[in-house]
């Protein structure tokens, strides 16, 4: 009898763990979907600016700002740098800022 109780408890724990894993997966895909929508929206904004032939500091600021946000989204949530040690996670962010700063200075 104690054995069957232990087995039943183990089974219950496995079911709860499995449900929790499913829930975690659904939450993570929902979160990445929202990020994807943000990335596509910023892309379409940039495309619209390009097609309208907008130029000058405002257009430059919006395009580079959009690239900065998109890049950081990819770094943080797609590359999962949010889970990496800071000394390594900071490298792509510094790269992104440096490249965009050079572009801004040259334009």
């Amino acid at each position, binding site marked *: 009898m104690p054995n069957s109780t232990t087995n039943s408890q183990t089974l219950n724990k496995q079911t709860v763990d499995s449900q929790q894993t499913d829930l975690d997966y659904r939450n993570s895909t929902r979160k990445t979907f929202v990020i994807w929508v943000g990335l596509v929206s910023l892309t379409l904004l940039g495309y619209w600016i390009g097609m309208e032939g907008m130029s000058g500091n405002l257009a430059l600021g919006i395009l580079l700002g959009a690239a900065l946000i998109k890049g950081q989204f990819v770094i943080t949530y797609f590359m999962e740098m949010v889970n990496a040690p800071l000394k390594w996670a900071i490298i792509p962010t510094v790269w992104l800022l440096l490249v965009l700063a050079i572009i801004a200075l*040259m334009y």
Partner: protein
Amino acid sequence: MNSISEKKLPGDFAIWIFIYAELLVFGVFFASYAVTRSNHIELFNQSQLLLDRTAGMINTVVLITSSWFVVNAVHAIKAGKQNLSVRWLAGSIGMGGIFLGVKMFEFITKHNEGITLSTNKFYMFYLSLTFFHFMHVILGMVILAVILVMARRGKYSATEYTGIETGASYWHMVDLVWIILFPLVYLIQ
């Protein structure tokens, strides 16, 4: 999926050395483009207007979508959903194929217009930068295809997924680079 877990780089450490080196190379490329443009603003602006910005936008959305598929493949395998992970990976490879198709269309169009590397400085950068990136997309697709085959064979699980994370990290780098390349070469006037 533990909320409290040790902080570590996703995937194999060696891929990160490769990724950082690649970012450095692309960074130098982008800076060279910006510096050269500052000396030939009119030429760059006029040549840029002849690019197919719609194709560039489509490819940006395609690459972002493929990156989203890949991150879902990683999350699926961490949840022990092997079949789902394989399907996300297949979707991302399909998106990579669309990217290559659109880019090939652009290359062929420019070739038919008689545009080559020596047409002018802008096209030298446009063709070399986008072709260099194109080759990275191909390499990324090969890596994803290998991972897909391994995943189908059950080599990855909820406790062993380093290989998928490694390939995913490389693919996201390819996406990250394009996120700068698209506005820089196609849009900013």
